[in-house]
């Protein structure tokens, strides 16, 4: 499957009841590409991301991961999901488990790794996000930034081929945002395929290979950050960037 793109989206529509949130999205993400999705709230950018690992069921259209059509009911979505890491705005660490258990439980129960293997992987990943000393803590004892880094490590433990980030720094105090973005920057440098919904324009400008501007359920404008963020052609993009710059 090396020739199939990691993520291919064709004609994606999503309704919540009467409300059409995605109005036909087409997107192809290349291996190793970092895509930042920006846009006003309610533009459908989080829904788009959540359709990629089927946390939301698309109303119509196709989502093809590494050549597997996951919108086909015959596809084993659980198997495909292990290939897609997901990082949430609210971290969603498992509060009843220690950091180490957070990182090992899916390795053991989904991938069938034994305790030693799982712990070895988890230890390596904790080191990668700079939290080696926290493996016995419970999530509640960690700062928001540390929790989000643990959440990233938890996804990495499954050896995903791609990572999805749903506003990973939006719930963080300003002084904690940097440490999370640093980890994400490191992942991008290592060649991870990434799709990031974010309001961090600096990060998008610096790290993204391609920026998508979404509004009203469609991709209004896409291109390299220098173009979309620097010289936006679309009137809506310009207005959005101007509004963001004011804050």
């Amino acid at each position, binding site marked *: 499957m090396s020739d199939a793109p990691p993520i291919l989206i064709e004609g994606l529509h999503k309704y919540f009841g009467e409300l059409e949130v995605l109005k036909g999205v087409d997107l192809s993400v290349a291996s190793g590409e970092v895509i930042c999705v920006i846009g006003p709230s309610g533009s459908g950018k989080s829904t788009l991301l959540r359709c990629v*690992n089927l*946390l939301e069921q698309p109303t119509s259209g196709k989502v093809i991961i590494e050549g597997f059509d996951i919108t086909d009911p015959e596809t084993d979505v*659980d*198997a495909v*999901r*292990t290939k*897609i*890491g*997901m990082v*949430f705005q*609210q971290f*969603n*660490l*498992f*509060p*009843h488990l220690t950091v180490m258990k957070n990182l090992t*439980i*899916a390795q053991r*129960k*989904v*991938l069938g790794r034994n305790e030693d293997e799982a712990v070895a992987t988890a230890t390596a990943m904790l080191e990668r996000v700079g939290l080696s000393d926290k493996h016995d803590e419970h999530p509640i004892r960690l700062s928001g930034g540390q929790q989000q880094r643990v*959440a990233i490590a*938890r*996804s990495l433990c*499954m050896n995903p081929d791609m990572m999805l980030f749903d506003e990973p720094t939006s719930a963080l105090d300003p002084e904690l945002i940097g440490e999370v973005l640093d980890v994400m920057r490191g992942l991008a440098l290592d060649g991870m395929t990434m799709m990031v919904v974010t309001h961090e324009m600096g990060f998008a400008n610096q790290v993204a290979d391609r920026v998508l501007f979404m509004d009203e359920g469609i991709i209004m404008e896409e291109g390299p950050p220098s173009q979309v963020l620097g010289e936006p052609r679309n009137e809506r993009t310009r207005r959005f960037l101007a509004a963001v710059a004011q804050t």
Partner: protein
Amino acid sequence: MVVVAKSSRVRKAKIRRWIIYAITVVVLVILAFTIDWATLQQAFFQPDIIRAMLPEVITIGAKNTIIYTTMAFAFGLILALFLALMKRSTIAPYRWFATGFIELFRGLPALITIILVAFGLPIALGIRVPGGTLGKGTLGLGLVAAAYMAETIRAGVEAVPRGQMEAARSLGMTRGKAMTYIILPQAFRIIIPPLTNELVLLIKDTSLLFVIGTTPLSKELTKFARDFMTETQNATPLTVAAIMYLIITLPLTYLVRRLEKRTNKGR
């Protein structure tokens, strides 16, 4: 003006409280002088009868009460877990069954359910529940307890944030694995206090099992005490049974308070 009004309200409340204290003291004094303490002791605290009840009130009565409670609770809890999951199922007939079951057994008096299991099943369907009092009691009380606990468990599952299921599924867990390893452990932590309350209610409901009919060795506390009352024509056995119930239930209610405090602190 405002200050004056406030202080006069405080004074009124103080006076009211003193009046209540005074009335209470007067009532207690009247009671103390009018009650025939000797008769009272004769009826409720006869040492001979207490001695005669020991040790069987513990080795038979309390033991059976605890056994019936434990079995019914264990059976009820497992059944409740299935009902709670069925009630949240995407498959409609499962939901209908669970709703029907819960409404039925919460709506019926526990006594009727027990009679149905013990006598209704053999008559109507020719089914004899094995295991004597224990078997019939476990089934009857377990059905009732399950109906109540199913709603408790469902509430606990729904109290776990949606993001927990999403995170688990994103890691490739099936619905079942996510439930088992992520959602239910958190849900049970939340519902330990209400479940312990169910346990206390269940302890007291075992007193209904007398309708099944008991052998000398399968009597629980209440039946044991009532038989002793008939024999002795005295109320002392009731006092002993009451004390035994309190010895079992008070530590549990104390535990619930402790757990509730801990849960509240954790939030």
